[in-house]
C-alpha cells in the first residue's frame, strides 16, 4: 500500500484522487466502480479535514491506497480526537432529510464494499471489490 501525506490543498487532493483513479482506469474497472471510488474517496478526505482536523486545519492527513485487479483499498487517517461512527445520525430518516449535512459517511458505506473505523475513529479503511462482469 502506498502512503502519502496529504495537505488540505484542493490541487493536491485532486492530484491524488486523479492518481488513484488513473490506476483504477488502467485496470479496466467499469465506469460505475470509478464513480463509487471517487465519491467515497472524496467524502472520506473531506470528513478527515472537516471533522478530524477542524481545530488544526494546517495538518495533513495520511492516505494509504492500493489498486489491484480485484480490489481497491483506501485508508485515511487524521490526527484529530476521533469520533464514534455509530453516533452519526441516519440522514435518510424523515426528520433528517432537510438537514444539509451528515451524508458523507452514509455515501461511503453505500458505495464501498466495506468501511471500517479504528477504535478511536480517526482512521477509516475502505475496501472496494470489483463487481463480477455483467453484474
Amino acid at each position, binding site marked *: 500500500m502506498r502512503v502519502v501525506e496529504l495537505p488540505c490543498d*484542493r490541487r493536491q487532493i485532486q492530484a491524488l484522487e486523479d492518481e488513484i483513479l488513473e490506476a483504477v482506469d488502467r485496470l479496466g474497472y467499469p*465506469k*460505475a466502480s470509478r*464513480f463509487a471510488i*471517487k*465519491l467515497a474517496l*472524496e*467524502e472520506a478526505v*473531506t470528513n478527515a479535514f*472537516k471533522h478530524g482536523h477542524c481545530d488544526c486545519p494546517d495538518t495533513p492527513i495520511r492516505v494509504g491506497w492500493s489498486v489491484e485487479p480485484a480490489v481497491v483499498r483506501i485508508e485515511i487517517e487524521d490526527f484529530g480526537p476521533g469520533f464514534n461512527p455509530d453516533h452519526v445520525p441516519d*440522514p*435518510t430518516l424523515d426528520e433528517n*432529510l*432537510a*438537514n*444539509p*449535512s451528515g*451524508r*458523507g459517511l*452514509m*455515501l461511503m458505506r*453505500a458505495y464501498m464494499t466495506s468501511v471500517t473505523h479504528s477504535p478511536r475513529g480517526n482512521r477509516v479503511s475502505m475496501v472496494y471489490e470489483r463487481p463480477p462482469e455483467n453484474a
Partner: protein
Amino acid sequence: MPQEQSRLRVTRDGGVTQVEFVDRNILDEANIQHIGEEIAEIIEASDEPRLLISFANVDHLSSAALGALITINNKIRTRNGALRLANIDPQIREVFQITRLERLFEIHDTTDDAMRSF
C-alpha cells in the same frame, strides 16, 4: 481583489431562471459555497422565485453539494418559490435515491419536462 469567476451559466425563460454548472465535478467545498451564494442572490432577486437547476454535464457531486441544494430548496420554500432539478446523470440520480433526497426535490429527466411542470 478580483471578483471570483461565476461557476454558473444563468438564463431566463418566461419567469423561470435556469442555472447550469460550469464544472463537471461539484466537489470542492469552497466552490460549492460560492455556487450556493450565487444561487442565493438569484433567489433573493425575485418574489416567489422559480428556479430550474440543470445537471447537464455534471459527472460528480459530493454530499456537500447535496447540502447546498437542500439549503437552496429551504430558501426557495421560504419565499414561496419553486425549484426543479433536471438532466441528472443516472449515477448521480442514484445518489439522490440512496440518500432519499428524491423525496425532497422535484426531479425531471429533461429541461423541457421541468419547464412544463412550473
